[in-house]
């Protein structure tokens, strides 16, 4: 029995980690077609802001987390204006040279990867130079759950609930709000959306800020449990990437299903064999999934649905 509970908690832990790592990236990739290789660094910004707010400014933890989210969202806004859409450089260019100097990165997969990789180099080294090689760490709140001879951190199990709540909130945002409708229209066909009066530029800006806020939220949530070094984003990047791609184009459903599948595999192998095999199993599963379901899980489900509609 304890082993079953162990496995359950490890699965929840893994599920939460994957979903929270992927959330911001999924939204940005799904809606804007931009691959943000600096996603890990956005998580770092959220974690750092939260830690500084809590330890230096003395704010209580939930408030500090809110600060983390807001700081990252604002940072994301700046990045969107300067790097992704190029609005700021173009405004300057128009004034100085009389013409636009950069093109937006939307739907330019390779270029967005390269540009955001450059951004991540600047961010990691910049933080190292300004804030030093490490920050002191906030302790993990909420104690532990004990069962049999085992125990698990309550906070980390709670994160699974937070992850699910986040997914539900994102789903509601996309289906019940104006923003969500505009975003989905822009994803489907941005020319038509624009023709119908949707301010696609504003939608992209809001989407990027939202994705950044989610990344910041992940950073804020994990700040009490991981080491605060400038390179901490790297440990989230792999899981985020793999989950987004295995999930496919459907943002909410894809992330949930990918988190569930990959989390289960990781937890199972880690539990039965060891952490090394858990990692390898996760990576190999991703490769296999991509090979047999190249459009991801939700892409596959979409095609099934289409086929059934046509077949019936």
């Amino acid at each position, binding site marked *: 029995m304890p082993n079953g509970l162990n496995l359950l908690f490890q699965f929840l832990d893994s599920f939460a980690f994957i979903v929270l790592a992927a959330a911001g990236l999924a939204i940005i990739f799904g809606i804007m077609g931009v691959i943000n290789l600096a996603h890990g660094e956005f998580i770092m910004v959220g974690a750092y802001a939260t830690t500084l707010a809590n330890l230096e400014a003395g704010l209580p933890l939930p408030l500090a987390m809110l600060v983390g989210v807001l700081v990252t969202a604002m940072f994301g806004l700046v990045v969107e204006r300067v790097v992704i859409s190029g609005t700021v450089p173009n405004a300057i260019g128009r004034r100085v040279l009389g013409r636009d100097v950069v093109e937006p990165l939307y739907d330019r997969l390779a270029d967005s990867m390269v540009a955001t990789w450059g951004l991540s180099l600047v961010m990691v080294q910049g933080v190292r130079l300004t804030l030093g090689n490490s920050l002191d760490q906030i302790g993990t709140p909420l104690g532990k759950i004990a069962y049999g001879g085992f125990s698990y951190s309550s906070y980390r199990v709670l994160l699974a609930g937070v992850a699910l709540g986040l997914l539900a909130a994102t789903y509601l945002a996309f289906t019940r709000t104006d923003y969500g409708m505009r975003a989905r229209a822009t994803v489907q066909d941005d020319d038509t959306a624009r023709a119908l009066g949707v301010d696609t530029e504003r939608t992209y800006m809001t989407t990027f800020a939202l994705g950044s806020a989610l990344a910041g939220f992940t950073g804020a949530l994990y700040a009490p449990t991981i080491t605060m070094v400038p390179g901490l984003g790297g440990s989230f990047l792999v899981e985020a990437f793999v989950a987004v791609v295995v999930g496919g184009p459907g943002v909410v459903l894809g992330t949930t299903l990918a988190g569930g599948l990959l989390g289960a595999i990781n937890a199972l192998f880690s539990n039965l064999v060891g952490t090394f095999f858990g990692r390898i199993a996760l990576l190999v599963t991703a490769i296999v999934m991509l090979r047999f379901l*190249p459009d991801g899980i939700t892409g596959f489900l979409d095609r099934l649905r289409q086929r059934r509609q046509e077949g019936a």
Partner: protein
Amino acid sequence: MATETETTSGPGPVDGGPDGPVASLRTYVEGPNTVGQSRPFWAGFVVAVLALAAYPAIVGGYQASRFSLFMVYAFLGLSLSLVWGYAGILSFGQVVFFGVAGYTFGVVAVNFATPAGITAAFFAGIVGGALMAAVLGYFMFYGGVRDVYVTIITLVSTLVLHTFMAQTAGDEWTVGKAALGGFNGMPTIPNLAFGVEGAAVRFGSVSFYYLVLVLLVGTYLGLRALVNSDYGRVMVAVREDEDRTRMFGYDVERVKLVVFTVGGALAGLSGVLYAAWGNYVSPQVFELAFASLPVIWASVGGRKTLLGAAAATIGIEFFRNSLGGEWALVAVGVLLLVFVLGLPGGIVPWVHDRYLGFRTDAGGPAPPESAENPEVTDS
């Protein structure tokens, strides 16, 4: 193909004119898929190669050895340019073939440390890289994986290899006399040597430099010939629109697999030379930071041009290497951002366009490229 509009008078052209031997060679390496078709270009190219040949004499063995590493990387940059710029496959995994080739070379060379053995190791390494590419390519392309998912799979392969190789530390991970060494890597890989005992050429710092230079020039010209051939046009067609190319009856999967394998061999050559240069290979070559370097080189230089990829590799690595200190990484990141945003096609195409504009503005005859052989592209 490449016709010359000769308007300059004077003594007969050095290369024997439009029907001379050089011109017929030039028909192989010139075409719409590469930059630089005119005589001034080739003159400049010869000057550059001569300057590179004179470099060790000017700066000495240590600097030459340092520079030869940048030239070794140029093969890696060229391999990505080939598969990405010419066939549309953005691969983060070129370092996988680089590393596999390096380790293969190391294992064979450490076990058979004679010149014949090292020669065999040289080819074994390249074959190893090509084979790995063929396997991965088959898995991906014949499985119908496309676009960004190819990129992700190549990225994940890099990570798998890194995690795996880093833990091959124990004695059980030894092939013959060569210990894989895990995270610490495999040191004491011998220098490159060709031939058999008694009639061998061993490559030290300066001779290694010249070997790499010769290989690089040869590879560059060979790749130019490849991409400007009929097969090269098929590659570019695949890059531009896979479905349309398939409808014309071309076996798109086979084309991608072949190109990917050739790219793997090139990356493998780079890996073998790298292992011989530093006498060392380690899992650090599979790290994300190194895996993204080829993408940076090709992006900044111009992935659709071979010259851009090679020149940018050497230039960026030289710059990165000379810039010490804490701000180096920040500078590289900013450089990358500025180039990708401002010159998304890369430097060399931009320079090329300026040059064409310059030539036309100056009132001279329109250079061959702009009039008769516009580059086949949709951007």
